[in-house]
C-alpha cells in the first residue's frame, strides 16, 4: 500500500513539493491559528479594556483573565496526557500516535503551569505584597509542575520509541493519580494550620457579567491555543520519530555494507 502511494509522488515530486509550504501547517491549522489570534485579541480587549475594575482587587483583577484559564487548560492538558497514555497502554495496537499526543500535551501543560506560577507570583506581589504564599493551591500547583518536569525527563531517557512510550505512559498515569492526592493533602495541611488572614488566590471573586464574560473569552482563547499547539507539536514529534526510524534505516544499510566488504570473512 505504501508503495503504490509513494510511487506517483516520487516520480513527479516537483509541482507537489512546490505547491506545499514545508512545515506542520495545513489549511485547517492556519484557519485555527487565525481564529485563535482573534480570540486572543478579544481577550486582550475585554481583559484590559472593557471589563471593569473589581471592588476589592481593583485593576489587578485583570490578571485573572489570563491566570485562571492557563491553569485550567494545564489541568486539561495533564488529563489528556493520562488518557492518551492509557489508550496507548491498553489498546491492542499500541499506536505511537497516542504516546506522542501524551508527550505533546504534557509539554504544553508544563508551559502553562509555569506561566500560571509566574503570573500568579506577579499577582501575589500586587494583592498580598509577596510573590509567594504557602497556600494550598499554590503548593499543589508547584508540585504539579515539578512532577511533570519529571515526566518529561522520563521521556528523554532514550531507548526505542515503544520503550519511551511504555515508561512515560506509566508515569503519566501515576502522575494524574497524584493530582487529587497532593491536592487533598495540601488542603488538609493548610486547613489545620489556619493562617491569620484568609487569602484569596483563585477566581472565587464575586463577578459581574462582563467580568465573567472576559474570563469565558480567556478560557476559549487558551483552549484554542492549546489545540493549535497540540496539532503542531504532535506533528513535529511524528517527524522526529520518523527521522529516528530513517536514521535506523541508514544505520542498517551501513551495517550490512560493512559485512559485504571484500575483506569481510564471508
Amino acid at each position: 500500500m505504501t508503495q503504490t502511494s509513494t510511487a506517483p509522488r516520487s516520480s513527479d515530486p516537483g509541482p507537489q513539493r512546490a505547491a506545499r509550504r514545508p512545515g506542520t501547517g495545513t489549511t485547517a491549522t492556519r484557519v485555527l491559528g487565525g481564529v485563535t489570534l482573534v480570540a486572543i485579541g478579544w481577550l486582550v480587549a475585554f481583559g484590559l479594556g472593557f471589563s471593569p475594575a473589581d471592588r476589592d482587587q481593583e485593576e489587578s483583577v485583570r490578571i485573572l483573565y489570563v491566570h485562571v484559564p492557563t491553569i485550567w487548560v494545564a489541568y486539561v492538558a495533564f488529563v489528556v496526557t493520562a488518557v492518551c497514555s492509557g489508550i496507548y497502554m491498553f489498546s491492542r495496537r499500541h499506536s505511537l500516535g497516542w504516546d506522542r499526543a501524551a508527550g505533546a500535551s504534557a509539554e504544553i501543560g508544563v508551559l502553562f503551569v509555569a506561566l500560571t506560577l509566574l503570573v500568579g507570583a506577579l499577582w501575589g506581589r500586587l494583592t498580598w505584597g509577596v510573590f509567594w504564599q504557602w497556600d494550598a493551591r499554590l503548593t499543589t500547583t508547584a508540585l504539579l509542575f515539578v512532577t511533570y518536569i519529571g515526566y518529561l525527563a522520563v521521556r528523554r531517557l532514550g531507548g526505542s520509541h515503544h520503550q519511551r512510550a511504555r515508561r512515560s505512559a506509566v508515569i503519566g498515569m501515576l502522575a494524574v493519580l497524584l493530582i487529587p492526592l497532593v491536592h487533598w493533602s495540601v488542603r488538609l495541611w493548610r486547613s489545620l494550620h489556619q493562617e491569620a488572614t484568609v487569602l484569596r488566590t483563585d477566581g472565587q471573586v464575586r463577578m459581574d457579567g462582563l467580568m465573567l464574560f472576559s474570563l469565558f473569552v480567556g478560557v476559549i482563547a487558551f483552549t484554542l491555543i492549546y489545540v493549535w499547539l497540540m496539532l503542531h507539536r504532535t506533528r513535529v514529534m511524528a517527524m522526529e520519530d520518523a527521522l529516528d526510524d530513517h536514521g535506523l534505516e541508514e544505520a542498517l544499510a551501513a551495517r550490512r555494507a560493512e559485512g559485504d566488504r571484500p575483506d569481510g570473512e564471508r
Partner: protein
Amino acid sequence: MSTWRIALLVAGKDLRVERRSRVVTNQVVPFAAVTMVMFAFALDADAVLQRVAPGLVWLATLFSLLVLVQRSYAIETDDGALDALRVAGVDPAALFWGKALALAVQLAVLEVILIGTAVVLYGAEVRAEGLVLLVTTLVTATCSLAVVGTLYGGLAAGFRGRETLLPLLVLPVVAPVLIGATRAVEAALGTVPGAVVSEGWPWVGLLAVFAVAFGVGGTLAFGPLIDE
C-alpha cells in the same frame, strides 16, 4: 512458584546482602544521623527544634530513602543480576513486592533510630497516649515510601544519570507522605502546642490511600518499567 514465595525470596536475598555487606548500617544510618545534626546547626534554637522535630525526622528519612533505593538497585545492576532476573522469568510483580518489602524493613529500622535521635538531640518526647498512632503512622508511611521508592528506582535503575533522575521523580511524588507523616507524628508526640492525638488519624488515612494507590500501580506497571 507463587508470586508471594518469589517476593519473599527476593526480599530475603536483599536483606541477606545487607547483612553481609553492611552498607546501610555503616553508611546510610550515619548519613541520616549527620543530617539530623546538620538540621540542628541550621535551626539554632531548642524551642524551634523541638517543634519541628517530626518534620526533620521525615525529611531525613526521605533523603535516606533516596540512598537506600540507589543501593537496592546497585546490587542488582553491579553484576547484571537484573538482566538475569528478567531472563529467569521472575514475575515483575513479585520482584516489585520483594524489593519493596526489603526496603520497608530497612526504612523502618532507620525511622526508629531517627526518632530516637530526635528524642535525644531535639528534646522531643514520646507520650504514652500517642504510641498507637505513632506506630501506625510509621508502618503506613514506611509502606508508602517503600513502594514509591521501589517503583521509581526500578525505572531509573538502568540509566546513566539515575542519581539525579531519582530525586527529581521521587521527591515531588512523596510530598503528600512528608506532609501526612509529619502531621501525624506531631499529633502523636504533641510537639506542637495544643495538638490532640485524634487529629493524627485522618493523616494515617491519607498515607494508607497513598500506599494502596502506588502499591497497585507498582504491581501492574513494574514489568513495563524495567523491561526493554
